[in-house]
């Protein structure tokens, strides 16, 4: 008896669509006269296989019995989205502000987000913790990697720092 799709089905559908799209792109790849196997040979096998497997997942999900989960755990997706957004912003700012400034800003923001200083930690003390963690992380990682391990970290285009 067909039912509505579950997350497996939606996952299978998304992967099927993506693999068919990429498969179509491989048809534009031109074979070389120098070698018997063109650049599209292996991608077509992989993408065709992926399409078949995701179709299997989709069909299996469509015809399988779905059981209602008894109790759904309350998960904080807002916090996850904000963490990703903060990290995305960090990645965007790194080439402009440089490693030290953007890392200090990111660590402060992420720490304040995960453990807000105003809630339960006694305001000013919490902000001091946030500031200390941010500055220490930026300073120590820069010192260890650039000075002792010869690993170059990004310099800021705007700050040259």
């Amino acid at each position: 008896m067909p039912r509505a799709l579950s997350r497996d089905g939606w996952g299978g559908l998304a992967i099927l669509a993506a693999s068919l799209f990429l498969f179509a792109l491989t048809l534009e790849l031109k074979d070389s006269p120098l070698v018997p196997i063109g650049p599209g040979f292996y991608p077509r096998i992989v993408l065709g296989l992926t399409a078949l497997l995701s179709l299997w997942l989709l069909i299996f999900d469509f015809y399988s019995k779905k059981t209602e989960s008894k109790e759904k755990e309350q998960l904080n997706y807002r916090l996850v989205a904000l963490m990703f957004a903060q990290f995305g912003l960090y990645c965007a700012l790194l080439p402009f502000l440089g490693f030290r400034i953007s890392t200090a800003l990111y660590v402060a923001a992420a720490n304040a987000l995960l453990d807000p200083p105003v809630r339960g930690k006694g305001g000013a003390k919490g902000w001091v913790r946030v500031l200390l963690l941010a500055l220490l992380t930026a300073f120590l990682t820069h010192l260890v990697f650039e000075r002792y391990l010869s690993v170059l970290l990004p310099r800021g285009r705007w700050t040259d720092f």
Partner: protein
Amino acid sequence: MFELLGAGIANILQFKYLVPLFVGTLIGVVGGALPGITITMTIIVVLPFTFGLEPLQGLAAMIGVYVGGETGGLITSCLLGIPGKPSAVATTFDGFPMSKKGEPGRALWLGIWASIFGGLLGAVFLVATTGPLARIALQFGPWEFFALFVLALSMVAGLVEASLAKGLVAGALGMIVTILGNDPVMGQKRLTLGIPMLEGGIDFLPVLIGVFAFAQIMSEVERMGGAHQAIEAVDRGVTLAVSHMKVIREILSRPFLLLWSTFIGLVIGVLPAIGGSAANMLAYDQAKKFSRHPEKFGTGTPEGIIASESSNNANVAGSLVTIMAFGIPGDAVTAVMLGALTIHGIQSGPLFITQNATLAYGMFAAYIVAHALVLAILLPGVRWMLCIVDIPKATLFPVVLVLCTIGAYALSNTMSNVYVLLAFGLVGYGMVKFGFPLAPFILGVILGDQIEINLIRAIMTDSDPWLFLTRPISGSLIALSVASLGFSIWQHHRQRAKAVAHVEADF
């Protein structure tokens, strides 16, 4: 072999190698003891620190993390009932009840000593088999390598806990990552989607770091700010004093249990990407089945602790065999090690041990010495390890993500790897939410290139596709792949039938 091992041990005992090995082991013990921080995460954090080191220094640090992490995980398992890592889950079943019965020191040290014995027995296997297995692999042509990589991928996809279809789809998705960029024969651009960053292909390390770090951190973050945060208060007044001779006798008086659990750990370690979490559960289950008093399991019996802990440390040796003999990572931790080797320009695989004998035997030695260092750390410091569960995750996670960023950036000193890290962080978290296993995905990313290269090499050498089946080793490996998938299908059907029967019985 013994001469080379002796030289390796003498080499690793030099100050310049011993320091990174000790620091790695210490970080591993701490990371292993921290609930919610896996060994994979710990080794990802350590990775950027190894870039500026010599290959053996870096690998010694990583082996230290691996061995230390496997042992460190049992501390919170035994004393708090919270497994420090997935491969210490079974230790909790008997370690924590034994602690609650008033024997926390016995529970803890039974686990630590069993880890040491299991690990050292694993070392015998590691040293004795890696060379011969690599010599067998040297006989392989492209057909055999293709079949071997396909076998590895099919086994991983089939043995993961999620559905077989999801395991296979995850593996295929990993392989898709490797087809973006240049083709390996003519270097022609393919499937770059007009994104210049994709033209050179995607390095597997930022993918691996992104997938594992974000999947784990975000899975913890989504539980923050709610009722999940409460951690049982640690009783620091608890006495951990114990007679070590008595504990050692208690373990050695059960030789079959120790050997069988070690064997299980080794076999699971050799199989690609299954890892210690399966090894400790399987060894625990076997110990219970072979026991004269299975009813005592779960109430604080020493057999449960010995089985679980000896198997998860032996698992490390098994994983190292696979990566050193075949270049196939046994799990995510060895996948990071593979990346570290690549960064230093060292090719893993069958030629590794002959071309880099000093490095290979240095790694064996690091594995053996790391066990002694675990003891050196835990004998005086086991009580301090209890304090680390107090480290707030709000402090830990931003710092870990900064280290991941450094790890990705430093691979080529370009921001593109940082963007790959972020993109695959989203992919990894999405995969977890949709229930796709990460292990086959990562193996697909690592082996995808090699599968393509060997497939093309085989066809360009001889266009007859039947050679994949008619060459004895290649044919056997492909038959094993099919058998592995068949077994997985049968196993999943059996589990589903059991679940249906259970639901009907409940009803």
